[in-house]
């Protein structure tokens, strides 16, 4: 009897784990999302780009910050006209030291993240990436990912979050109060544009400025009138612009770095 009970328990546990894995895509989980595989399938493409931001002081070059953008694409399994884009950006200001005086005593320079901007122009044909005319149409629309009422929704609600750690798995709650941000997104613009402002004033929390942070967001693209492409059915380039600043007793400055990541299927 004990063996039967044990077998049933094991089977139930297996089914529970198996059913959980089926529902959530693991790549998305790693980026802090819960993407339903029954609707969006598995990740079609997954890329990331990173860069270090430098400054020059007294002829020497110093790294003052690190930024990264990850992008993953999904195709709607229930409607081929829709693609889901998720991204995760990173900002990590890097403290450094410079020599001072004739004795070359080193002093520390503090660094901060000022802003991050994530931008994707869906119908921008000037990317010049060499894969053909893939997004020159005017019928690409974006809307809030889930739930969505109809593919032709013109009003977008950004799904945006910032945190100091990557969320490992499970559903997330988007919080727009942790960081001051502006976003501009609508079907008429065909642009996804989020501006994160770390440099908060007054009663707002500015603690993220000196910390390693992760921003995540997501948007859907309507490709009901797709254009031909030698790369794939759908191509998306997300650009990231990060501004870091630094200051110490003798020096200060501000530097901006831009990078981009392209994914397609």
């Amino acid at each position: 009897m004990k063996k039967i009970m044990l077998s049933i328990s094991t089977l139930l546990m297996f089914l529970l784990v198996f059913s959980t894995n089926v529902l959530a895509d693991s790549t998305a989980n790693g980026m802090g999302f819960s993407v339903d595989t029954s609707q969006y399938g598995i990740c079609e493409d997954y890329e990331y780009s990173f860069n270090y931001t430098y400054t020059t002081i007294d002829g020497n070059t110093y790294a003052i910050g690190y930024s990264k953008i990850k992008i993953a694409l999904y195709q709607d399994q229930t409607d081929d006209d829709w693609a889901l884009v998720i991204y995760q950006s990173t900002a990590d200001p890097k403290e450094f030291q410079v020599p001072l005086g004739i004795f070359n005593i080193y002093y520390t320079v503090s660094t901060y993240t000022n802003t991050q901007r994530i931008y994707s122009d869906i119908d921008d044909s000037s990317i010049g990436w060499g894969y053909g005319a893939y997004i020159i149409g005017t019928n690409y629309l974006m809307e809030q990912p889930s739930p969505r009422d109809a593919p032709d929704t013109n009003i977008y609600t950004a799904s945006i979050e910032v945190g100091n750690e990557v969320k490992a798995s499970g559903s997330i709650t988007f919080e727009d109060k942790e960081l001051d941000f502006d976003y501009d997104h609508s079907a008429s613009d065909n642009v996804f544009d989020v501006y994160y402002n770390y440099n908060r004033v007054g009663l707002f929390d500015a603690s993220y400025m000196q910390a390693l942070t992760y921003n995540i967001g997501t948007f859907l693209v309507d490709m009901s009138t797709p254009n031909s492409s030698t790369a794939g059915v759908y191509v998306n380039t997300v650009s990231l612009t990060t501004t870091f600043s630094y200051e110490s007793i003798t020096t200060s400055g501000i530097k901006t770095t831009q990078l981009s990541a392209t994914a397609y299927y």
Partner: protein
Amino acid sequence: MKKTSTFGIIIIFLVIGITAWFLISNFSFTTYPEGVPNDYYDRIDLLEDNDIKLYVYSNNIDFNDDYEYISVSNLFSLSAIINDYGNFLVIDMNKYKISEFTTEEEIQYLYNVKKITIFIVNYASSESDQLINFVDDRDFDSDLIIYSYDSSLTNYTATNSGDFPTDQMLMYAILDQIAYIIEENSVLYE
């Protein structure tokens, strides 16, 4: 008179205290390779704490002897590696373009079967035509291309979008990227 001298002593101690605080908070007694951030030794400690094995095929990358890596000269040196996400291989294209190291098929094997995270460095600046089928054309302009796995065991490619001003920064970036991979995929390194 006594009150005055007590007050003077307090003032002296305050001045000494403020000066000491200013010096300790602003000046550093640890030296770093030129231009690299202050978390340089913390990143090395993280790699060592996680028993990372870093194999390097290069004439120039030596991490200033601050980090104990394993220098390799041919693929035979890697044949004994067991499948483990804690193995990392750096291939410097400045060396690879002038001396034979391995084939694209063998690198595919190391990546896909042995699960080694592969760093291809100086790809753009070396103007090498090696590995042309292994490297995605999206990454041709990069001097640091990473082939790795995330915590869900999905393989992915990561690229640095710019060049590195110095070899010190390139070496720091290699250590820093391994540290990020460990931190963001901790389940693989527990």
